[in-house]
């Protein structure tokens, strides 16, 4: 725990500059909710923060099992941070299974807060402990706060007229109350949320609030073991501006809406539920008043096809899924590509192949996005790096899709979709409009007439008098737009489709260096949600005097024009990815650069320390 005792005017609280807390319990214990509420309060306190929700694939795995453990980690600080933190300073374990799964990550001297009421013989056995870990020395290296949380919660809600089951369910709010006390978080945002959420169930609302307050009061009054005290984490010194907490899912949804508005189109989302992409469908369907139509299709194929149909009719068609669903959409993406209709495909990546690890994060669909279709079918691929960045990348995806009349794949992942970060809210008015101009002039019209600069075909929508035409998957004649089986024409059309996509490189920003110099010993090249971990690792190395730089790609296809030159300015190139090595191959293929691959396919984000070690081993000595 990075301590630094300050003489603050905050009573007896000890000032910390950063803390990592992990809440862990049974899937039914409400840990995600606890974490989210703690995050909200923390954001409002002005700390910088990053979170990592980590939950099991089963909705309600058998109670007390290790595979049913759900966890939520938050890292908050008085300075600028980028990742949810490597190891927790404090672990809140609501049952033995949570302790079993997560204790190994808590460093020596770290604090473990336990709900002893859950440490029954049965639960201890279920978690796979032979003996009671509270008694056999398992926790000797840690500061342990063992509390009868069930009992105290039940007592706190005794007056609330709830059943004993409902009472016990409030225990996560009791734990939340205690943590609010310990880290000086305000309870009011949570109380407001409870009242709103349980407005129709006043007894339940009252019980949750009572539990929250009781946990807080417990901290104030009970003597805690030595080494545990009340803390304060001063607000971060961040850029002036208006902030909010945002998840990648929300930012993609808002970005798509903003993009559609900038293009002057209505937004149509065709989707089929799949973890971790479903939340985007849920979020967008809640925003119908912004001109959004959502359609839960019968499968992913129908989802993408409905979006293509909507684009054909003059809306912005969007479809969202995760790897297995994107695989099903592949044939239809080819149709959108060859008919040159705008389409945004959001892939919220998860662990694979096949069903894989549905609730874990991975970035293993890069090959699928760049290469994964039959025939010569290049399309733009964009990747988001942080939750907030999802807003900008979604707008960029819409801009490119409509300007170049092409499907665009936007890659996010489960970590980005679910994790929250404080976000300086941009001024949407400051982002340039890119209005679509439908073709209306019949003079000289055919459907595959191209813009000389962008090579995009003109877009005429049904309902327009005088522009009736037919499009489809069969190859079309370059000069008339009619069906053509001519071999030279097919060669020409394939080339022009590729040239159109390659030309986008002229219309995207040059690649920048996110950290470090533009030349040097080592470039660490990343993409997607590894941004925070790489940036922090490189930043530590740079401040330690090492000659290393961080380059993070947003545009995966086409690459920015200067990327090749930039990479050639470094002696070595290292590419860390949460997959078995994909971007590294694309870079080697494109630039003949001897890039080295660092891989981690554990379903967990990279630790800063891991990357730091990899960097040091390459540039030190």
């Amino acid at each position, binding site marked *: 725990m990075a301590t630094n005792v300050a003489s603050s005017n905050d009573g007896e609280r000890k000032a910390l500059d950063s803390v990592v807390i992990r809440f862990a319990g049974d899937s039914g214990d409400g840990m995600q909710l606890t974490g989210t509420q703690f995050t909200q309060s923390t954001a409002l306190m002005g700390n910088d923060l990053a979170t990592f929700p980590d939950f099991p694939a089963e909705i309600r795995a058998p109670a007390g099992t290790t595979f049913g453990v759900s966890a939520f980690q938050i890292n908050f600080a008085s300075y600028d941070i980028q990742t949810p933190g490597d190891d927790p300073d404090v672990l809140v374990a609501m049952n033995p299974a949570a302790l079993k799964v997560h204790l190994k990550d808590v460093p020596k001297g770290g604090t473990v807060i336990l709900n002893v009421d859950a440490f029954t013989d049965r639960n201890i056995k279920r978690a796979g402990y032979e003996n009671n870990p509270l008694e056999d020395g398992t926790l000797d290296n840690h500061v342990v706060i063992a509390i009868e949380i069930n009992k105290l919660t039940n007592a706190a809600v005794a007056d609330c007229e709830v059943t004993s089951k409902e009472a016990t369910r409030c225990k996560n709010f009791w734990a939340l109350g205690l943590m609010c006390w310990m880290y000086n978080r305000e309870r009011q945002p949570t109380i407001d949320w409870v009242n709103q959420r349980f407005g129709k169930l006043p007894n339940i609302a009252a019980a949750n609030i009572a539990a929250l307050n009781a946990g807080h009061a417990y901290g104030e009054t009970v003597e805690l073991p030595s080494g545990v005290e009340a803390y304060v984490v001063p607000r971060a010194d961040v850029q002036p501006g208006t902030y909010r907490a945002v998840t990648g899912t929300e930012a993609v949804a808002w970005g798509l809406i903003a993009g559609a508005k900038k293009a002057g189109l209505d937004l149509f989302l065709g989707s089929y539920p799949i973890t971790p992409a479903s939340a985007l469908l849920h979020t967008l369907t809640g925003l119908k008043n912004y001109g959004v139509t959502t359609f839960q299709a019968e499968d992913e194929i129908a989802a993408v096809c409905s979006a293509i149909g909507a684009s054909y009719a003059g809306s912005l068609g969007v479809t969202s899924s995760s790897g297995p669903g994107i695989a099903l959409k592949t044939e*239809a993406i080819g149709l959108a590509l060859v008919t040159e209709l705008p389409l945004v495909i959001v892939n919220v990546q998860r662990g694979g192949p096949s069903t894989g690890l549905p609730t874990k994060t991975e970035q293993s669909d890069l090959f699928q996005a760049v290469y994964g279709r039959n025939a010569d079918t290049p399309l733009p691929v964009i990747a988001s790096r942080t939750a907030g960045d999802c807003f900008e990348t979604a707008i960029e995806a819409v801009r490119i899709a409509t300007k170049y009349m092409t499907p665009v794949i936007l890659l996010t992942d489960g970590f980005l979709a679910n994790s929250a970060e404080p976000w300086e809210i941009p001024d949407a008015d400051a982002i340039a409009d890119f209005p679509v101009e439908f073709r209306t002039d019949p003079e000289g019209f055919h459907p595959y007439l191209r813009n000389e600069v962008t090579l995009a075909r003109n877009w005429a929508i*049904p309902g327009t008098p005088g522009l009736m035409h037919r499009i489809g998957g069969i190859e079309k004649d370059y000069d008339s737009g009619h069906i053509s089986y001519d071999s030279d024409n097919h060669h020409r059309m394939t080339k022009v489709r590729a040239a159109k996509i390659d030309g986008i490189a002229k219309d995207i920003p040059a690649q920048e260096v996110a950290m470090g110099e533009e030349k040097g010993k080592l470039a660490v090249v990343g993409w997607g949600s590894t941004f925070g971990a790489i940036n922090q690792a490189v930043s530590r190395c740079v401040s330690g005097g090492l000659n290393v730089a961080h380059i993070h790609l947003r545009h995966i296809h086409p690459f920015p024009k200067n990327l090749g030159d930039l990479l050639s300015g470094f002696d070595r190139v290292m590419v860390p990815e949460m997959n078995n090595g994909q971007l590294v191959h694309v870079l080697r293929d494109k630039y003949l650069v001897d890039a080295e691959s660092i891989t981690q396919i554990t379903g967990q984000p990279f630790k800063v320390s891991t990357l730091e070690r990899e960097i040091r081993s390459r540039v030190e000595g």
Partner: protein
Amino acid sequence: MNIETPVEALKPNDYASDQEVRWCPGCGDYAIIKGVHRTLAELQIPLENLVFFSGIGCAARFPYYMASYGFHTIHGRAPALATGAKLANPDLDIWVVMGDGDALSIGGNHTMHAIRRNVDLNLLLFNNEIYGLTKGQYSPTSQLGTRSPSTPQGSVDAPLTPLSVALGAGARFVARTFDTNQKHMPGVLKAAHAHKGASLVEIIQNCIVYNDGAFDGWTDRKVVSDNSITVEHGRPLIFGAEENKGIAQADGGFGIRVVTIGVDGVTEDDVLVHDENNKMLAMMLADMKQPEFPVALGVLYNNPSKSYDDAVHEQLATVKEASPPGTINELLRKGRTWTVSEGS
């Protein structure tokens, strides 16, 4: 100056594109497109408002031969594309052309769901009981024992009956006609068009190359009167060259049977009257097969309910009225925000 120029009425030929039609000579699809052109001209549907979607197959070439808007999509998926287009622009007049393999094999799921949702689409199913484009393999509507390149000893799996499947999926409009029945087809197509919601029309089509004569047993001019029945709402279910046969309730209970008026004391009063709102009757008519029964033609079921696109747009309107959209900046600032000021 305001001179009214009378709009020239559209003729059947105005609905045809200038593209050379590439179906095999003698293919039933020629007759069908003629019937469609005639129907559209009778309805005077403006070309710019008309969209034909199709999947893949011989039938699916249809949009290229139309002068309207058209989208030749991918195998089986046309109903899904059409659904998206209809939701995006409910004013479009959308027709979907599908083959039997297209609609019932690879696209079975989409056909079923377009019907179940009751999307306002005119779904035309060209049933030739064979895969034409891929050179003659058996299809999900091929009769048991069909010999084809993929079933040289004859198919062993039972076919499905498209209209029965559609009624099972909750269709509100099902009808049947056949390619050369040019007097009948426009009426059926007009009824389908008038029906708001998913309208499924099975158009029996002869594939002269791979399944020639598959329907001769009841479509041939010599037998059509005896082996098929053309139903009309409110009219008795009478058929036969001599108009003396009818569909009556089965003896002593549930089901139907064929009766001959004047035999065994049967009178015209014993013959059932067609009621296009009666789903049970529609199910029985849809399932009538040769040789026991005549094949039913015409509108078997027509019982409209709210279309999906209407329901979706009503909901959108309600939401917009309850909470009018703000600017993007307002959207981004909804919920909890906090402000960090200079020097804090």
